[in-house]
């Protein structure tokens, strides 16, 4: 039995390596012709004029991801704490079902909603509306359910006898959450954060529709930005030759970003949970 599992696991591993090699192979025609440093030093991103600077898109991708995490992570943990320790069972069950539903909505629907509802509101405040802010808001709504549900299940793992012991010691509910439940589920909460970040980094369709897709480092939340994944989706359909290879390089950089993120989370995966 475990041999079969080993083969399946190996296949998954091999698949990732193959995807990496594939991206490398497809971007090679460009990377062997120009120095890879030009991806960060060219004056701009205009592939039709042979300028391939992707750094503004790297910055935009990171800003959108961090912004979405800043909104979604606290909300998700607050939701998890409320459902797990405060809400009546029927309420917490209902709330979780709503979040599960939210998690199942296709991203293009979020994008359409963002473009039709959110963007006009933002444009009435300032600028063209399609902006980094719109992207952050949409992304945070999209990653909230996953994070909240993962955080909740990791809080639920806090052993029952610890809860009873803390109640017997006369700790208030909040003190129990703060001093026992949260520290005990630290690993799970951080992993929830990593999974949310991974989703936000790679999200394409919704971001493409609401961000405006201008390749520039944003000077405010209201400035339009283009993320790495949106760049691929926008231009791949009609790209040829070096332009196409440049888009594969964009994918390569995105994969490296995600890998870096996973390396960052690795110590938490190996460390055993307390509960």
């Amino acid at each position: 039995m475990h041999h079969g599992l080993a083969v399946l696991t190996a296949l998954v591993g091999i698949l990732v390596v193959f995807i990496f090699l594939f991206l490398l192979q497809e971007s090679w025609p460009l990377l062997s012709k120009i120095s890879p440093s030009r991806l960060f030093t060219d004056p701009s991103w205009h592939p039709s004029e042979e300028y391939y600077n992707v750094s503004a898109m790297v910055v935009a991708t990171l800003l959108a991801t961090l912004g979405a995490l800043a909104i979604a992570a606290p909300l998700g943990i607050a939701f998890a704490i409320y459902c797990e320790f405060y809400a009546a069972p029927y309420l917490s069950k209902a709330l979780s079902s709503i979040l599960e539903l939210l998690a199942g909505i296709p991203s293009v629907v979020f994008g359409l909603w963002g473009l039709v509802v959110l963007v006009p509101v933002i444009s009435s405040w300032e600028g063209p509306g399609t902006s980094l802010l719109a992207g952050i808001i949409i992304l945070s709504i999209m990653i909230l359910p996953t994070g909240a549900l993962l955080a909740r299940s990791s809080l639920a793992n806090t052993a029952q006898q610890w809860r009873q012991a803390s109640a017997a010691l006369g700790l208030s509910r909040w003190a129990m959450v703060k001093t026992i439940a949260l520290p005990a589920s630290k690993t799970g909460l951080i992993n929830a954060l990593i999974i949310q970040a991974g989703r936000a980094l790679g999200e394409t369709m919704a971001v493409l529709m609401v961000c405006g897709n201008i390749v520039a480092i944003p000077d405010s939340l209201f400035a339009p930005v283009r993320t790495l994944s949106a760049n691929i989706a926008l231009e791949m359909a009609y790209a040829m030759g070096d332009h196409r290879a440049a888009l594969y390089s964009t994918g390569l950089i995105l994969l490296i970003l995600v890998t870096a993120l996973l390396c960052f989370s690795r110590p938490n995966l190996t460390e055993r949970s307390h509960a």
Partner: protein
Amino acid sequence: MQYTLYRIAKTLSLVLLCSIGLIACNGDQDTKRLQITGSSTIAPLLLELAQQYETNHPDVRIDVQTGGSARGIADSRQGLADIGMVSRALKPSESDLTPHPIARDGIAIILHKDNSLSELSRQQIIDIYTGKIKNWRQLSGKDETIAVVSKADGRSTLELFLSYFNLNSSDIQAHAIIGDNEHAIKTVLANKAAIAYVSIGTAEYNASTGVAIKLLANDGIVASTENVANGSFPLARSLNLVTRGEPSTLAQSFIDFSQSPQAHSAIKRQYFVPL
């Protein structure tokens, strides 16, 4: 461990064997082949037409490859392709080739219906897209910052727009860059101060179904598929198949099919205008 490796090797070699088998089965001796190369604007349409043609003629295989109009010219000249795809009228220096027009492609400049302007001169459009005119007030419209919507590098509508207005991709100062035509229309609906350009087929269809956009006239000629078809609308180009000398029977039969009314629905699906 050794056992696992053995299993992996076995699985992989099986996959390899199967694919070799599939390739071998495909090599039918009796199939007639048609090689088509050239413009990436026309390629998606030709792919669809080729599929329809192959369904009706099971013994024919049509291979469509992109590489730009220049490749279409070069390959059909050297006999590397039976048919070239060229998304412009032929130049005098290309009179050795015979054009077979299959459709026309035109783009319309669109504004939100609530925009008080209904006409812009060529120079005004250039000034708006290069960032010299930033507010509709400068053109005696409302006091609103213009949201300039453009397309991603490599899109055929962008190419046509740039060549008509004699601009470079890097001259354009846009506030939003979008992918397909529907995305452009949604962006204009979300921001009443926006200006965008889309394929005339899409714009006309949306305006006729009550979507709140308006199509601007060019040089006093109304933007309509009718004026694109009769050649009077200036912001348009013809989509040609080209051959050198007399085409082969098979090539002629495919060209006849592409020019027949049977091809019209596929042409309209690509937002081109049938002749």
